[in-house]
């Protein structure tokens, strides 16, 4: 068989087409597999009592029990849980943005004695298992009477925490040209003004990434909320959901309804801010070099 140039090209296109098809099939299959648990969760959440146990599995419930949501959300004070989680999360995000920006600025732009040392300390804290400080901090919090308040969940993470965010911001700040600083300095600006009027406005993408990552981390916090929040009015969504689980052990439809409610805000926030998420993660992963 004589192979013409045209024939070879057609073969290549055909192989390419097959390859693209295979790639798409795989990607779609994986996407379906990843989203399946969420779909199943919602499907179960809308099922009538007993209907969640039918075989073969029923994907679209009949009847659709929207009342499950009301029943799940009112049996425990989920509105309080939501408010608490939001309070703690927002406090942490705002506090972290401020403290991490200040610290990152110091590391990136201020030439002070011991700068390298302290930056290495910051990095070292990233590798520290959190349980090392869990025990002594619990004792300290007890002595301070901070147990059953939001303080243990906000103060240590804002002050002394956030090493990862300091790292992200510092890498970003270091990439901003110093000429801008110098221009401002010639106009008489001190460090504070340089930070607020030059650096921060330029660092919006990095700040947004920090805000989003911090939001997620705090919204999903479990262990420390479990340790420190005793009374019902103080509990967060994650703890509330756990409590729900221990009380409604086999009522899977209600548990899935509660789970849906806990999951929705984060997913909504994610779609709203996903650009900052994914870019933020990539930003940090690569800027480590």
């Amino acid at each position, binding site marked *: 068989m004589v192979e013409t140039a045209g024939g070879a090209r057609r073969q290549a296109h055909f192989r390419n087409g097959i390859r693209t098809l295979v790639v798409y099939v795989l990607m779609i299959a994986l996407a379906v597999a990843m989203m399946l648990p969420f779909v199943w969760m919602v499907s179960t959440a809308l099922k009538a009592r007993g209907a969640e146990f039918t075989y073969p599995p029923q994907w679209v419930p009949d009847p659709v029990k929207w009342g499950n949501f009301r029943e799940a959300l009112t049996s425990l004070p989920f509105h309080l849980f939501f408010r608490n989680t939001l309070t703690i999360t927002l406090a942490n995000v705002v506090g972290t943005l401020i403290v991490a920006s200040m610290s990152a600025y110091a590391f990136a732009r201020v030439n002070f004695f011991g700068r390298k040392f302290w930056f290495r300390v910051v990095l070292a804290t990233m590798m520290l298992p959190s349980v090392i400080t869990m025990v002594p901090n619990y004792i300290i919090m007890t002595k301070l009477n901070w147990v059953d308040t939001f303080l243990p969940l906000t*103060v240590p993470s804002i*002050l002394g925490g956030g090493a990862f965010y300091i790292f992200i911001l510092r890498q970003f700040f270091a990439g901003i040209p110093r000429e801008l600083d110098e221009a401002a300095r010639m106009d008489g600006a001190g460090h504070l003004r340089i930070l607020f009027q030059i650096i921060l406005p330029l660092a919006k993408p990095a700040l947004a990434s920090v805000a989003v990552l911090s939001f997620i981390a705090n919204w999903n916090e479990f262990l420390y909320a479990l340790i420190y929040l005793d009374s019902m009015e103080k509990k967060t969504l994650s703890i509330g959901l756990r409590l729900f689980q221990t009380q409604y052990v086999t009522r899977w439809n209600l548990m899935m309804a509660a789970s849906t409610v806990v999951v929705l805000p984060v997913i909504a926030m994610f*779609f709203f801010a996903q650009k900052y998420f994914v870019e933020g993660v990539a930003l940090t992963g690569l800027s480590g070099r």
Partner: protein
Amino acid sequence: MVKRRTADERSISTDEAASLAVAPGESARPMRRRRLSRRTIRENVAGYLFLLPWLAGFLAWLAIPMGVSIYLSFTRYNLFKPPVWQGLVNYRELFLDELVLKSLANTSYYTFIGVPIYTVVALGVAVLLNQKVRGISIFRTIYYLPAIVPAVAGTLIWMWIFNPDFGLANMLLKGLGLPPQRWLYDIQQAKAVLIFMSIWGMGPTMVLFLAALQNVPKELTEAAYIDGANAWQRFVHVTFPMISPVTFLNMINGFIASFQIFTPAYIATSGGPANATLFYVLYLFRVAIQYLDFGFAAAMAWLLFFIILVLTLLQIYLSRRWVYYEVAPD
């Protein structure tokens, strides 16, 4: 710059000359051997002022508690009576307590089997997404989603799917004519199920791999292609070495995080069945918060720190064999 100094000559170095330079607005000083200019002091004060919030917190919530924790690990303390010094008793107990050993074994299983699987899956998916097809960002978002969901909710969903009586997984097996499994209630299967659950959250790791893959210079893979390398050879000899720093980073992070697994075990199995999923941090939590045995818990925490440190150092040492840096790391 060459400095020549004789017994009766004083020369000044460039640093001193710089520090003596008069900045606009400052008054001139008599020439003296001084390194601390007003400017330097200002810079230092500014630096530490900006750092102060973090620094204060670091001392209050990290440095001092670490010291307290070391002290506590040598005592018996339950919060009501003052700590009683015990010397190395806690540390000796660590190796005699069968639950400590069991939890270490469980955690090791979960980490050393789970992390490689997890990393390979994340890398595989990243390679898939790196193919030149359109709509990648949608898929990237979808794959990322499970990782941002609160762990309690995610765990509950999987518990329901793997429910031995009515869960989707066993329904699927039934449909395929296979016998139902007990999953999280089975001593042999429980950890494997937890590993499977963790893979659902591989989004962020995958995104890191994807970014690294996209940064591999195309000239290198094209050169290999021209030299006759097939896809697998190109991956093994060009792509993988080029992304090895990121792979290394992901593995270290994966090990450190996996070794501290808590929430899924707490929610799904409470450490059961028969302590098959009693992981180290779960047991530590129990010892500290439920038994109020703070001294022993502190010792456990330090053992964990030591293990993680050794693991990380070992990986760093081994990394010289297989991690390739295009640019020398700083």
